[in-house]
């Protein structure tokens, strides 16, 4: 296995449950030293894809390679190279944190002599020292998530699969967790699934966008950022002449594009959509320009949501 070949390879991977296709012909790679974000709304097929890479589920068709080992035929060899944090941290409630981590380390083949140092390393990385002897059922949600991350880091895996690792954490913990992932990603391959847009743009080098089981695009965070900015819109309902309205709106600084159509069931009112730059105060300028001359019924600023970003990718823009 040459060091240049990607750590994770998906070749035309599909998964069907009965007649429902959950993942459809997905191919991509993740190289060492790279953090790839896996972005999609809930139910897009992120978790199923993660599970196929981790070896929990077998693809209906296609192939998953981890460090060159085929997940279907060389399962144990491939699994040895993976650290996996599922969406719901897989914890044994009655064990204490130490006993739990010892079990995982032992199952991953960590030698007895290296055990203490290895447990110390991951508990320091995930800040678990304070709860090391506590039973897991007594831990808060943030700690449970971090124990889950710690077990994934055990045994120094080459590949880290994290299914929504910051879900349920408070802002401070989110920051710490991102730092752990960022540090790990410097010389390992990390695939990180999330449905939070800024998370993907903040720490990932590339972002794979998935929806309805299909890979829509693999883009850079800056490309994603542009797509997100493109979804900055102000919508308004106004009664007035369409042509003059368009002229007035186009003259407002920050407005890029204007679309006008009759509002449904509102008499002579018009529905206007302005595509604007991503800066504050544009909606106030628009309100001033319109309200002084015509009747303004409603004005709304739309934030770039994941859904809107997806629409951009789906529509191929």
């Amino acid at each position: 296995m040459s060091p240049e070949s990607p750590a994770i390879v998906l070749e035309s991977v599909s998964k069907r449950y009965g007649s429902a296709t959950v993942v459809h012909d997905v191919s991509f790679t993740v190289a060492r030293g790279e953090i790839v974000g896996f972005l999609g709304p809930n139910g897009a097929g992120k978790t199923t894809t993660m599970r196929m890479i981790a070896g929990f589920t077998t693809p209906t068709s296609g192939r998953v390679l981890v460090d060159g080992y085929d997940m279907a035929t060389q399962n144990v060899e491939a699994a040895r190279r993976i650290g996996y944090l599922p969406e719901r941290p897989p914890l044994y409630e009655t064990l204490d944190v130490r006993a739990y981590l010892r079990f995982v380390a032992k199952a991953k083949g960590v030698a007895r002599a290296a055990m203490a140092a290895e447990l110390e390393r991951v508990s320091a990385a995930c800040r678990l020292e304070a709860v090391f002897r506590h039973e897991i059922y007594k831990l808060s949600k943030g700690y449970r998530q971090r124990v889950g991350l710690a077990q994934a880091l055990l045994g120094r895996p080459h590949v880290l699969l994290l299914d929504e690792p910051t879900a349920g954490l408070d802002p401070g913990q989110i920051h710490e967790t991102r730092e752990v992932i960022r540090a790990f990603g410097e010389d390992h391959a990390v695939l990180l699934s999330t449905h939070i847009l800024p998370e993907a743009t903040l720490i990932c080098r590339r972002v794979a966008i998935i929806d309805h089981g299909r890979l829509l695009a693999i883009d850079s965070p800056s490309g994603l950022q542009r797509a997100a900015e493109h979804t900055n819109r102000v919508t308004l309902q106004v009664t007035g002449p369409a042509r003059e309205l368009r002229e007035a709106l186009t003259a407002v600084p920050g407005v890029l594009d204007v679309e006008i159509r009759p509002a449904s069931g509102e008499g002579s009112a018009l529905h206007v959509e302005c595509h604007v730059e991503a800066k504050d105060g544009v909606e106030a300028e628009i309100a001033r320009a319109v309200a002084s001359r015509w009747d303004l019924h409603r004005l709304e600023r739309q934030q770039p949501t994941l859904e809107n970003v997806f629409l951009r990718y789906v529509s191929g823009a």
Partner: protein
Amino acid sequence: MSGLLAVYQKELAGYFRSPIAYFVVAVFLLGTGYFFLYNIFFTGDATMAGTFHNMGLLLILLVPLLSMRLFAAEYGAGTMELLLTLPLTPWQIVLGKFLGGATLVLAIAVATVVDLVPLYLFGTPETLAIVSGYLGFVLLGLACLAVGQLASALTHNQIIAALIAAAVLLALWFVGHLQAFQVSPALRALTGYLSFALHYADFIQGLVRSEAIAFYAIVSAIALTLNASYLQWQR
């Protein structure tokens, strides 16, 4: 090997941190103590035969409570996703869990040895019959455990797992009773061969037959193989 050991140690830790194991052991020892006293005072003989028979039936009823958590609890807690993605083969998982349960069955057997103290103090029991009885008890316990573990892998609900295991084990215990109703010699032989109780009765009488040892070993092996194949098939 270290994978199997890891699963085994986790199972043992799981047993001793859950109240169910203590409850099962306590009920078993109380039940055995009661039957022991009853049999001794009723018959006046220094023998374990009656007690062994009752211990067998207690095992059939209580082992499902030990085995029900082995896989059903893993599904419930979402830890099956961890077990199946660690570098472990299905056999390491299945055997690790089986040996964890087997340790508990052995511990139960050892704890009942205390009943032998008055037997040897006040009588002259047949030592060989007692040894073979214990051998039968352990073999029966392991076969029950393997069947119970398979039932636990088939459902996400621990109660259902225990009920399936108890139903199957009771059927295998009492199937020998059907012998009396069979006209065809082949069916008579089959119902007799399948009976957990009839093979166990041989051991109680001090008869160690290779056929009986093979029977329990085959039942355990079939259940464990189905269990490992089911894990593989689930992926």
